[in-house]
């Protein structure tokens, strides 16, 4: 049977205790050390239950961190470190692993200390692609090629060169990245470190706090701070934070935006995330409509930081990638819509966001930047063969994420024209980042494109407005 105090304590922990009852609880705690001890016992249980529950999260990846925290074997772990190995406590079996390789698009992580996806203390080289590591204490690190690094323990990583982004939960506080010129100690944050070929180091803090120690100085960096240490210089120099240079996650997580798009039942939704082979252009939930990335230089890593998760970066030159979907979803209802985030770079040029031709050699649709007007323009071919063109009324803003849907900019309608059912069928591929009329690609996009969704119906103005307003 719960007493009043028990009820107050539970309501307190739920953040639901009234001011009057808070005063009563306060007085009760102070009344005797036994009461304070009872409070400690009850609240400690609450915290343990919270930790335990995290181990029940249904996630596609192993989650050893809470296990590590709540199962309380850190002393054994400490002993293991002292003799030079690190032990991870997995729920069932004990595998002596410092980190797990959870994503390795392009599959290129090279090391003699690697045993399948289990990574041990040792030296690693990543000549191409990306790798995402989950350390036994919950620290997640994304490494971009080309990179060389050494795993010393689950708390220390030496970065000789390359670029990494780390996300450090409370269980990983103290995680340290050592570069040729600095030591970066984390206090529970998200941050990026880049070591250049000239052995300079840059540290960018996206959230939280880190300490950067050079040979004779120690500086504290907070959210949105960044610093640079050149080789030979003894003191760090403040620079502007670059939140977009570092890829911080490899898998495309569900966000408010993606959930909003899925709720509208897209015919195909290309999240522009990083695929395992870095070639597949994945259609989320409808793999049959997946396409491929056409790369002219296989060494090029085409991914960048997107509006939501990762995205594809198009260089707009002859080396640029583009995406091609040969088996496009049928758009047979007569109406259709698309929604996309774009981040344009460079001077005005004809540049394609997405295009599809009909077998008659006409555009089924083309969403592109028009060089003459410098606006985003939509061309649609109706079933009777006539072409409808509508264009934005304002010049395209570059170097900033913009949301477009047929034809709304950032959720507000910019142009409309009467239009009958669109032409269909077509057997030609859907192209993103380039258009291809007669086997020769043209009008290459320069900049980034993210979250391209295609709908087999006309979205309502309200649906577009809400979608564009959903923050990632």
């Amino acid at each position, binding site marked *: 049977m719960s007493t009043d105090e028990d009820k107050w304590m539970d309501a307190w922990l739920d953040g639901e205790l009234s001011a009057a009852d808070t005063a009563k609880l306060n007085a009760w705690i102070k009344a005797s050390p036994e009461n304070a001890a009872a409070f400690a016992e009850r609240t400690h*249980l609450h915290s343990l239950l919270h930790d335990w*529950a995290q181990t029940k999260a249904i996630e596609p990846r192993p989650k050893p961190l809470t296990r590590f925290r709540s199962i309380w074997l850190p002393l054994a772990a*400490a002993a293991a470190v002292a003799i030079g190995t690190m032990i991870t406590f997995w729920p069932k079996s004990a595998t002596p692993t410092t980190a797990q390789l959870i994503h390795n698009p392009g599959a290129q992580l090279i090391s003699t200390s690697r045993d399948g996806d289990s990574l041990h203390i040792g030296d690693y080289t990543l000549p191409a692609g990306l790798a995402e590591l989950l350390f036994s204490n919950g620290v997640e690190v994304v490494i971009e090629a080309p990179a060389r690094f050494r795993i010393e323990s689950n708390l220390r990583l030496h970065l000789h060169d390359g670029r990494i982004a780390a996300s450090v939960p409370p269980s990983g506080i103290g995680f340290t990245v050592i570069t040729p010129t600095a030591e970066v100690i984390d206090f529970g944050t998200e941050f990026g470190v880049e070591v250049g070929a000239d052995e300079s180091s840059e540290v960018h803090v996206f959230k939280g706090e880190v300490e950067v120690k050079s040979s004779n100085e120690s500086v504290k960096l907070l959210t949105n701070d960044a610093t640079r240490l050149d080789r030979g210089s003894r003191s760090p120099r403040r620079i502007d934070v670059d939140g977009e240079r570092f890829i911080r996650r490899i898998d495309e997580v569900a966000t408010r935006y993606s959930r909003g798009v899925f709720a509208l039942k897209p015919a195909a939704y290309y999240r522009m995330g990083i695929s395992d082979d870095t070639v597949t252009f994945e259609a989320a939930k409808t793999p049959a409509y997946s396409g491929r990335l056409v790369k002219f230089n296989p060494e090029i890593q085409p991914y960048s930081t997107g509006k939501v998760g990762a995205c594809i970066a198009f260089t707009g030159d002859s080396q640029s990638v583009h995406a091609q979907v040969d088996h496009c979803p049928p758009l047979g209802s007569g109406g259709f819509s698309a929604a996309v985030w774009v981040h344009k770079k460079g001077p005005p040029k004809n540049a394609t966001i997405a295009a599809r031709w009909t077998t008659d050699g006409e555009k089924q649709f083309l969403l592109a930047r028009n060089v003459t007007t410098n606006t985003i323009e939509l061309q649609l071919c109706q079933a009777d063969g006539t072409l409808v063109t509508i264009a934005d009324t304002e010049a395209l803003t570059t170097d900033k994420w913009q949301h477009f849907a047929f034809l709304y900019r950032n959720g507000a309608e910019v142009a409309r024209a009467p239009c009958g059912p669109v032409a269909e069928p077509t057997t030609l591929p859907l192209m993103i980042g380039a258009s291809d009329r007669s086997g020769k690609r043209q009008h290459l996009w320069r900049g980034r494109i993210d979250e391209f969704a295609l709908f087999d119906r006309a979205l309502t103005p309200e649906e577009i407005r809400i979608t564009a307003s959903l923050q990632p």
Partner: protein
Amino acid sequence: MTPDPDRTTEITLNWTSAQSSVMAFIRSVTPQLADAEDILQETARQIVHRYDDFDRTRSFTAWAIGIARYKVMEWRRRQAKQELSLDEDAIEAIHHAYAEKAEDWPQVGRAIDHCIKKAPPAAEKLLILRYLENLKPAEIAKRLGSSSNSVSVRLSRARDALRECIRRQLAQTEA
């Protein structure tokens, strides 16, 4: 200041073992998780700065909880609505209760793991809704088509049963 790998390693190992108890203390006096995480981070930072003051003959966890107490007090002074928080004497008393048991908490952690496995599936489901999805009893009730009061009662019972099991478990270990 020259980085000293041994010192850093020692701090981080100590911190790894103390962190869960420190967080439990911080959470007990700052129920909003986001606030608690900020305070935990500030505590970790302070521990690194003041590590030379740590007396190695004493419990690191108790020392860390002591530092967390100061950080909680600082945080509390910045709060606008002080009538909704515990006062400094109460926080002090709770801190003592936590610090006193600093070396016992790990055993409680092991015991709870054993006890939860024996909990009935319905209780486990309730605890997951409460602690993983962070739902309040009223929201859980809506999901389960039950009343808020009934959910509160069943949650209390589940926790009481766990506490009882933990007590028995600890008594066995000591015996």
